[in-house]
């Protein structure tokens, strides 16, 4: 394996162990980059060491000790030389990766900072890559990272896997961060921007990692299933011009069957053994969509029932919106429209868009056109705007 591949695969878990050993995010990062630079310079001629990961940990650890000595000398504190750092283990410790995730996803940090820090430290993305993926200027993102690392240090956010009594709450935050990363990639992966699509891969990778570390947690399984089932359809969600293709119009032969199968079997286990969590239920819904051989064969009554379960776990207007659409498809458009009328989601374009779609299916073209116009007033995403404009043209009476 070359250095680049090693970086891609192991950066996060090596850094995780190093942070525990040196007790400082920045110092650990700097030293690890130095160690990788040495590896880049030496390995091509000398050949890689027998155990590259532990070589990197111990090299970086020595660099960190050097740095601490230099700082102590610079400050004129000869007497206060840092205590020798704990000796390095042979291998990166899996528990450290979990510590790192829980620290990066600590609820005392803002969600933006949690995402950025997780991608930077656990996934090893560069500041520039993350800034481009989130469409923010590099200095903004860099400052977000600096501030987050500063807070970890100053407020003393612990580098620990939370204790049992707070694990559920903290795991929920961590899973939320992973799903946000996935959605950042998924909702905006229109067109040729591969970097945004990479966020989906990183999120799935994180999900696999957390599941490997906490195999008994059913919601981790549910989340991984959900991401895989969505991701299986990623390539078919837009056409070659970047225009949106709705679920019912997607080319099902191009869906990634391996991901669907993996997701579906994860869902089964996530749903068994107690009341299901919100990710498991959403994954079950995604599995029903992904496994339907055609749009017509979609099991809408079952999907509507699952949305009712989801609404009891997470009673939000967005879930209600999805439930209304599922009921419209299962029981009749009128029932769905009646439910939509009760939902209050000011400023959210998908509410009038859903109403417009149901009215279109019912053949009520004038009302449908009015609802599409309402949605167009609120939409911000360019691909979605084009889609809504096209639908509006379809339901509008032909001009003479």
């Amino acid at each position: 394996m070359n250095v680049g591949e090693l970086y891609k695969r192991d950066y996060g878990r090596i850094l995780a162990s190093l942070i525990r050993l040196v007790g400082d995010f920045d110092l650990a990062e700097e030293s690890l980059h130095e160690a990788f630079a040495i590896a880049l310079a030496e390995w091509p001629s000398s050949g890689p060491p027998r155990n590259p990961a532990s070589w990197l940990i111990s090299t970086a650890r020595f660099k960190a000790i050097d740095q601490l000595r230099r700082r102590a000398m610079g400050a004129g504190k000869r007497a206060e030389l840092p205590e020798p750092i704990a000796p390095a283990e042979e291998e990166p410790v899996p528990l450290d990766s979990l510590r790192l995730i829980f620290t990066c996803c600590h609820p005392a940090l803002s969600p933006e900072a949690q995402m950025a820090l997780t991608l930077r430290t656990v996934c090893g993305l560069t500041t520039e890559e993350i800034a481009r993926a989130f469409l923010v200027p590099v200095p903004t993102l860099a400052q977000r990272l600096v501030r987050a690392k500063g807070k970890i240090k100053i407020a003393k956010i612990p580098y620990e896997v939370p204790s049992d009594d707070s694990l559920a709450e903290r795991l929920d935050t961590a899973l939320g961060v992973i799903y946000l990363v996935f959605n950042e990639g998924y909702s905006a992966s229109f067109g040729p921007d591969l970097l945004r699509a990479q966020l989906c891969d990183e999120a799935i990778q994180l999900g696999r990692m957390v599941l490997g570390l906490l195999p008994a947690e059913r919601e981790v399984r549910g989340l991984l299933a959900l991401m895989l089932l969505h991701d299986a359809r990623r390539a078919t969600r837009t056409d070659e011009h970047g225009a949106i293709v709705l679920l019912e119009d997607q080319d099902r032969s191009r869906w990634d069957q391996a991901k669907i199968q993996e997701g579906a079997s994860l869902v089964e286990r996530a749903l068994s053994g107690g009341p299901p969590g919100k990710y498991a239920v959403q994954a079950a819904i995604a599995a029903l969509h992904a496994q339907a051989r055609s749009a017509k064969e979609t099991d809408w009554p079952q999907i509507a029932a699952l949305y009712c379960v989801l609404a009891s776990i997470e009673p939000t207007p967005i879930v209600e919106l999805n439930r209304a659409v599922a009921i419209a498809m299962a029981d009749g458009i009128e029932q769905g429209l009646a439910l939509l009328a009760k939902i209050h989601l000011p400023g959210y374009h998908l509410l009038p868009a859903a109403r417009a779609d149901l009215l279109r299916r019912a053949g009520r073209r004038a009302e449908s056109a009015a609802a599409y116009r309402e949605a167009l007033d609120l939409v911000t995403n360019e691909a979605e705007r084009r889609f809504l404009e096209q639908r509006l043209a379809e339901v509008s009476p032909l001009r003479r």
Partner: protein
Amino acid sequence: MQYLVLIYDSEKLYGDMPKAQLEKIYEEYGHFTQSIIKSGHFRAGSQLQPVSSATTVREKNGKVVTVDGPFAETKEQLGGYYLIECKDLDEALSIAKRIPSVRTGSVEVRPLVPPSNAASSSPR
């Protein structure tokens, strides 16, 4: 590691509260304070007089002026504080979550600058 726990609550809410309910809250505060004294986390703490008693001092046009009132008028007011000693933020947060005012107001947790760093760390 020391943390200052700042308790923000609505003075109006407390002013309008029936006496029995108010007494119950004070009793809860008493129990809470006793529990953190017992566990060894307590360093200091007190309820504050209402913001109507506050005076703010600041420099204006090169002159130090004294003005009546709090630093900022807000819906919730700083009503009390605890100074606690904890091993890390998680421990401090677990204590903060037990403060009765969490239910009606907000509780802010701020780490103190350790004494040895105080000189080198400049105020913002």
